């Protein structure tokens, strides 16, 4: 288990989340903004399902030929004067980035938002090496100030309210007048912009992620709504792109098709405010921009995923639609999932990338309602993947033993209908003793009765009523 995982058990994390009134309000905003936003955006694109098919085809094709496209991408980057670094693990990637920073005697680093950097805990590593690291996405910035963790892959600070921003700004921007008015979002934004502008101008290295890597051009495609990544990749003299292997797609057209489904699925926008295609500077020194362009291509478990049953998970383009539409995420928020990726995609990725035992509960924390499957822009069969993880737990003995024993006993009885019916009927009769038709508590099913009543079992089961009815009519059942 990585250090990013909360030490608390899933039960404790859930309890903390469910007791947090601010979080409940914040999660309500996802419904009104992101879910409704996606619905409105889709209304303008009647062929959206066909677009999802195309997006899924592009990613599947890229994964089927991943070696070829990665080599093509690396060659194109090199030809354009950039540098590609292959990293097998997070530690490898961090060492490479550290070496690059040392090579230019860097002191200050600005970062664009990148879930991969969260995955390998890059910022805390670089800070420990003595670098000043500043997150420049507003949500990530507030998270950094609060020493918090993202709770959503697109809207990292979705669990926070406006007041949290103002408090953190007052606590950290101590050079500003303490009595300044920062109650309104515009005021917060203006202050963040002024502070971050100085950081951009003073940075030696800019690190961004990539939404897509384009094999034919050796480019990275980066989408944001704040333009912060554009500043991070153009103002410092070194730009480092940190991306995992599965981000590569064959062509720029492919990347743009994926951008069409990404923005609509993520935030309900037709296109993100900033969609940037960035490549190595080439030999034209008249072009303004960084002198060095590096791409760190990180594996970190992807090649294992590629060979496993969860391979379709590598199609994920990190839009967050599955978590926005997930009623479990809507109840407990992102932190309760315990690692960097929450919601249905996280319940597949956390066990597969970060340890099956450490995240044993996540595949079970779903009602299989299927809403994630129905909104995924690249048609990842999320519930099937979760079911596969449950099957695997049962087969390997990782699943909790008692539910399994009960289910096997129950299954054994189901296959013996007369016995099963006798047991159910005796149980029903026993439960009915002394009730008025409404059960408020039983010695078992405590979880149900903590918050819910249950009707008492009927005096006569459907089967016995049916048998009596057919006998009365002289027809066998």
């Amino acid at each position, binding site marked *: 288990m990585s250090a990013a995982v909360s030490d608390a058990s899933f039960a404790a994390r859930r*309890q903390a989340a469910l007791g947090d009134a601010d979080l409940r309000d914040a999660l309500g905003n996802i419904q009104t903004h992101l879910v409704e936003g996606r619905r409105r955006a889709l209304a303008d694109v009647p062929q959206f399902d066909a677009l999802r098919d195309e997006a899924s085809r592009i990613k599947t094709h890229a994964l089927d030929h991943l070696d070829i496209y990665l080599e093509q991408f690396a060659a194109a980057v090199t030809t354009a004067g950039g540098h590609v670094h292959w990293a097998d693990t997070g530690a490898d990637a961090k060492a490479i980035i550290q070496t690059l920073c040392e090579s230019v005697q860097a002191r200050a680093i600005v970062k664009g938002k990148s879930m991969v950097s969260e995955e390998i805990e890059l910022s805390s590593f670089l800070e420990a090496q003595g670098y000043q690291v500043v997150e420049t996405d507003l949500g990530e910035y507030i998270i950094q100030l609060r020493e918090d963790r993202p709770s959503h892959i697109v809207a990292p600070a979705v669990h926070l309210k406006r007041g949290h921003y103002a408090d953190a700004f007052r606590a950290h921007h101590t050079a500003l007048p303490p009595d300044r008015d920062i109650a309104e979002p515009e005021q917060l934004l203006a202050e963040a912009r002024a502070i971050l502008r100085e950081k951009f101008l003073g940075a030696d290295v800019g690190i961004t992620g990539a939404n897509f890597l384009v094999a034919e051009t050796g480019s990275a495609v980066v989408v944001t709504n704040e333009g912060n990544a554009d500043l991070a990749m153009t103002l410092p003299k070194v730009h480092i792109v940190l991306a995992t292997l599965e981000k590569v797609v064959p062509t720029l057209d492919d990347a743009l098709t994926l951008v069409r489904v990404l923005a609509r699925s993520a935030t309900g926008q037709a296109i993100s405010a900033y969609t940037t295609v960035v490549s190595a500077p080439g030999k034209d020194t008249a072009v303004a921009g960084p002198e060095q362009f590096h791409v760190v291509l990180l594996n970190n478990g992807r090649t294992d995923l590629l060979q496993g049953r969860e391979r379709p998970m590598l199609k994920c383009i990190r839009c967050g639609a599955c978590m926005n539409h997930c009623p479990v995420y809507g109840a407990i928020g992102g932190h309760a999932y315990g690692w960097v990726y929450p919601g249905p995609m996280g319940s597949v990725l956390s066990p597969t990338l970060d340890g099956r035992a450490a995240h044993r509960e996540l595949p079970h924390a779903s009602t299989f309602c299927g809403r994630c499957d129905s909104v995924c822009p690249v048609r990842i069969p999320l519930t099937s993947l979760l079911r596969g993880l449950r099957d695997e737990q*049962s087969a390997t003995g990782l699943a909790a033993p008692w539910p399994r024993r009960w289910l096997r006993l129950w299954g054994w009885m189901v296959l013996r209908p007369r016995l099963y019916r006798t047991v159910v009927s005796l149980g029903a009769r026993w439960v009915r003793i002394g009730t008025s038709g409404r059960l408020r508590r039983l010695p078992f099913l405590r979880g149900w009765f903590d918050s819910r009543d249950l009707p008492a079992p009927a005096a006569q089961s459907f089967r016995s009523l049916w048998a009596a009815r057919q006998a009365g009519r002289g027809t066998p059942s």
Partner: protein
Amino acid sequence: MPDRQPPLHVLLLPTCLVDTFRPSVGLNTAELLERAGCTVHVADQLSCCGQPAYNAGERATATAIAQTVLQTCERYDYVVIPSGSCAGMLRTHYPRLFADDAAWSPRALAVAAKTFELTQFLHDVLRVTLTPSAMAPCTTTYHDSCSGLRELSVHAQPRALLAQVDGITLRENAATEVCCGFGGLFCIKYPDVSTRMVDNKCDAVEATGADLLLGGDLGCLLNIAGRLSRRGATLQVRHIAEVLNGDLHSAPILAPEDRS
């Protein structure tokens, strides 16, 4: 009407929950089918479709149960289930369960093709016109069960059938397509999360001001009614089969008037 000649022999799978908690759903389902000209059968040897085991990752148990279900279902023209969840198990998941089994896969696919959720069968296959039933005017809201909605595309059918019932005004709730938090064993395993989910559902249902909540899956309805009952709500909860068959004699699920 499809290629089969009447009378159609329909196997009614009542579901474990209907059998134990709400026999009226099974009886009303049978009457609806009989009035539409079907001969209804109930198989003694079947109790559960195996979904709890399948969803828990107990494939061997689920497979053994599914094989007995398939053997029985093969004898009938159609299989009709008053539940989107159990119908989804037969239609969507049995073929997946046997996908790699050359002997059983065609049998699973054949049974899947003739298995229907109740409102789907009444509306899409039988294309019934309901016998008009007298119902006191009431405002209703509908809960789409997740399996019915997303595995079987059951959405228009219950609404079209309800439109044939005099006196019913349908007022949709904002969360009609959102899971109620039942999820079979989920509600026992994660009761805290399940409770928040069903509270969100109850809030949305109550916000409509409806007198009656209808749905096609007893699991969801027990969950929502159970929570409404604990919250002291006055809203009634019923399975759609009861209303479509004009049976309002039996008390609603956890009837509000008994709530003390």
